[in-house]
């Protein structure tokens, strides 16, 4: 069996491909987390910021949504190394310092998704009635306590469907990180295709793994959505 040897044999490509799929998942989850942080900042600036902060947040959002993700990845890969080398040179080390590719990928995915996540959070915030915020203030809650007790639990519920979309977006964008050499799923398939001269087979395998990841995580998000709505279900 040709296929069996190729993927499941002792030196088969099955294990490297699965490991690369895990890398894709790890990369996407980290990207989602970084993006959530940046997105929350952007959303905060647009909701509560002054004129300057709002304008800046709007500008950042416009640029991030109008520029191809690949370009942002190039910026972080080469720009990050540029800055690191510059700092290194200032500290007396001469030579080139590269930003680790995983870190570059996580940062790029986070920044690319931040604009979308900011919109999701802002939308979730607008659903919360003003009166609740006023009562929380009247009860003497500080901003952080109010966020933790009043805003966050409700916002998560409204943000989940949007976050699910952003997650799918990040998962698919993570394939772009292969251009800077991180061995995630697509890169692993490329390597396998190159060394066995069976590109169709390897890209098909990667395609199936991507499909499995996107549909399984899509199911997980749907389950979380249903669960988060449980307090409102009657009967």
């Amino acid at each position, binding site marked *: 069996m040709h296929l069996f040897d190729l993927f499941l044999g002792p030196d088969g490509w099955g294990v490297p491909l699965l490991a690369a799929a895990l890398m894709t998942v790890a990369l996407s989850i980290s990207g989602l987390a970084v993006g959530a942080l940046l997105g929350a900042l952007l959303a905060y600036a647009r909701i509560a910021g002054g004129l300057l902060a709002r304008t800046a947040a709007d500008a950042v959002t416009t640029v991030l949504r109008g520029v191809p993700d690949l*370009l942002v990845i190039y910026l972080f890969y*080469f720009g990050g190394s540029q800055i690191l080398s510059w700092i290194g040179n200032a500290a007396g080390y001469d030579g080139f310092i590269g930003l680790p590719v995983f870190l570059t990928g996580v940062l790029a995915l986070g920044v690319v998704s931040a604009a979308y996540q900011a919109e999701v959070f802002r939308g979730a915030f607008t659903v919360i009635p003003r009166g609740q915020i006023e009562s929380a203030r009247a009860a003497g809650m500080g901003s952080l306590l109010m966020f933790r007790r009043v805003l966050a639990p409700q916002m998560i519920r409204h943000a989940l469907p949007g976050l699910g979309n952003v997650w799918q977006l990040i998962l698919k964008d993570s394939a772009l990180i292969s251009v800077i050499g991180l061995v995630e799923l697509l890169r692993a398939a490329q390597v396998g295709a190159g060394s066995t001269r069976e590109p169709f087979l390897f890209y098909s395998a990667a*395609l199936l793994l*991507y499909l499995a990841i996107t*549909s399984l995580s899509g199911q997980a998000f749907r389950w979380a959505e249903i669960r988060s709505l449980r307090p409102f279900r009657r009967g």
Partner: protein
Amino acid sequence: MDLSFMQATLLTLLGGLPLTLHLTASSILLGGAGALVLALMRTSGIVLLSAPARAYVFVFRGTPLLIQLFMIYYGLGQFRPALQDLGLWSFFRDPYFCAVLAMAMNTAAYSSEIIRGGLASVPPGALEAASACGMRPLMRLRRIVLPLAIRQALPAYGNELVLMAKATSLASTITLMEVTGLAGKMIAQTYRAVEIFACAGLIYLALTLILTRAVLLLEWWLSPRRPRRQPAPPTICTTGEPA
């Protein structure tokens, strides 16, 4: 900031703009036609048509565009003898053709869902009224369903167009030197990432701005409540000066 360098960069990058525009336009046109066919298949109510459309959309929306591109450009290369026998090799050898094919197939899947939403928004009463007037299904589709559905789907479709214009940057991975490809090459050569990013970003921002404005204009033009030129009201009891 080195202004003369920026200027030179902008001019070089603009050389890639025609290719970006070609890729965008071809994939949007081809993909739009495919999307319409897919959406009609999906809503036809015939399992033999709707099931393949559903599977197609599932696969193309569930996987990255980059792997679809590689699948077509590199993956199909494995079947070179067969493709040569069919006389198709000259197409699949050409990166431009492969890029347009991959992007059109990809956007067809996403757009078909958008159009499907538009089709679902057509009120059943309008369909019944059209049938009651004696329209056959094809005429009903042309005169009633599509105009309403397209107007409804336009805002979401505008987003998809912008995403598509941005997605053409992936063509640089299969040797096509459009704006992002040129920018990537220049960054790798000069390591002046920030300046080159700013120039390329400017080009893409202008492109997406024009696209979104064009869609807004089209939306306004297709709105039923758009103020139309009214026939002049009959001037019967005018007193005083004519307006």
